[in-house]
């Protein structure tokens, strides 16, 4: 009967009490989830952009060195454990080159701006606290790029395949026949069409990115959902993990909705007839 109670509670928006901190799980998720979303949302967009561009370049240079190079790169990043990509980036960019901070969420010496929204970066912007804002951005860059790196491969793969399909299509051939330049046909006509199936990937990609973020945050000691889950695992805190799973599920449903809306905007064939 415990499970019935739990489900009833969940339906009322109550995910239970964290046994370790003795605070509601929703409160903790409310604190950590926005920080992870600040990484995952830009990372999802970034991986779509990287994937589309590399997919298009690979397709238009089919079976040439550029194509093999791009396929090699996405093979390696795709087959990499997320923590490995993060570790290598951290070593090279943060430790050896010293370009960005290797760990942390924000400079701990800076006072946090007022909580207007759950998102620290929005709070910093709304209060005009630009030094806090830049510190956040500095700490976000490497985790975001790491997440994008482990997930862009699937976009490249699908974009490349659908570009190759569309390049043989009659409308691409007719566009060439009209006397348009090859560049215009590939990047205007074909890429525009090939980007439509990518949109359906957005929700999947978002899920990938969330899973990647959990691990990557650990490497960068960034205090988001990854930190929260790692703590929960160490304490064998089942309530928090279950609550997290439910929240991740909900956010993926939302990502699906966003993908559907984008699809409608990009493809005139599914638009409602005025």
């Amino acid at each position, binding site marked *: 009967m415990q499970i019935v109670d739990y489900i009833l509670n969940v339906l009322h928006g109550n995910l239970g009490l964290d046994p370790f901190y003795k605070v509601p799980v929703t409160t903790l998720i409310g604190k950590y989830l926005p920080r992870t979303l600040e990484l995952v949302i830009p990372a999802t967009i970034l991986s779509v952009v990287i994937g589309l561009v590399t997919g298009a370049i690979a397709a238009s240079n089919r079976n040439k060195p550029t194509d093999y190079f791009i396929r090699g790169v996405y093979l390696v990043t795709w087959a990499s454990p997320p923590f490995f990509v993060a570790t290598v980036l951290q070593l090279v960019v943060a430790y050896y080159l010293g370009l960005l901070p290797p760990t942390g969420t924000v400079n701990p010496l800076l006072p946090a701006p007022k909580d207007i929204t759950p998102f620290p970066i929005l709070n910093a912007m709304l209060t005009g606290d630009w030094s806090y804002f830049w510190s956040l951005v500095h700490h976000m860059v490497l985790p975001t790029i790491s997440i994008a790196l482990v997930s862009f491969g699937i976009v490249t793969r699908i974009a490349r395949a659908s570009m190759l399909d569309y390049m043989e299509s009659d409308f691409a051939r007719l566009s060439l026949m009209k006397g348009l*330049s090859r560049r215009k046909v590939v990047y205007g006509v074909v890429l525009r069409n090939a980007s439509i199936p990518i949109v359906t990937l957005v929700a999947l990609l978002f899920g990938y990115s969330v899973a990647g973020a959990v691990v990557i945050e650990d490497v960068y000691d960034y205090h988001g959902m990854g930190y929260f889950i790692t703590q929960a695992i160490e304490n064998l805190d089942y309530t928090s993990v279950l609550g997290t799973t439910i929240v991740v599920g909900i956010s993926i449903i939302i990502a699906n909705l966003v993908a559907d809306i984008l699809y409608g905007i990009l493809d005139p064939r599914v638009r409602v007839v005025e």
Partner: protein
Amino acid sequence: MSKLLLELKDLTIFYKTLIGWVKVVESVNLSVDKGEIVGVVGESGSGKSTLGNAIARLLPPNSKIQGDIMLDNVNLAKLKESQLQKYRGTSVFMIFQNPLNSLNPVKKVGPQLLEAAKVRYNREGKKVEEKELVEETLKVLKELRLPDPQSIMERYPHQLSGGQVQRVVIGMALLLKPKLLIADEPTSALDVTVQAQVVKLFRQLNEELGTSIIFITHDISLAYVLSNRIVVMYAGRIMEDGDVDEVLRKPLHPYTQGLVSSIPKGNKSQNRLNAIPGNPPSFFVLPGGCKFNPRCNKVMEVCKQKEPSLVEKEGRRVRCWLYE
């Protein structure tokens, strides 16, 4: 000024397959005069579409061509992809079989037509206002008897019927005014009534702009209605080439005879269609000698041994041992 527009010299086309390079078109020699309409007729797999695509240089990457494609003293066969652009559109234009795939599905019809008009003005070195382009495009759509041209321009391709799209594509040709138009089975996907209207538009295009047309079809009666000349292809080779009336009245090659006798005559005394028995050969296993010999009703011993060449006969060309 010579009358010759296009001359194919020993044009041979290969496809790369699992077992290596396979010849699908073998040494085609063909010339097309200015203002001429040539119907290229053959069954599916005869290499007629491949030939059309080769002239437009639109073959897929797994193909290669040998020989020359001389269009107005330019050898299209020897041009690089980047050099082809300036001949596409205004020199050669091509129309495809399936109208549902011919237009970019995510762009409105109007801009797609305007692009064509812009290409021609750019080549002519003229600067024109967007407004004039729109007016010219609307005029063309009206000529094509498309209802409410204004709203057609604002629609997406999926909101038009197959016949309407095919007319829009012919509209592009009217805007580009190409010297040579290659039409690859442009009416096969259309209803018979729409087919007749579209065929009429091709004739109009030919008469008004003097555009030469290579009309590729499997339907010899359709070729008869439109063309001045008929070229019959089989297994990647020209089998017969001559004036449309003569070929229809007195076909020389047994294959052409088969095609002609398969046309329904409409008189009741002959209500049986004479289809040619058998199937066209696969390019992987072409028969020795004359490629048509296994299906030919006048086959002789020599047909199985040696392939005949294309010879002049009664002002036409024919590839058959009966005439050598």
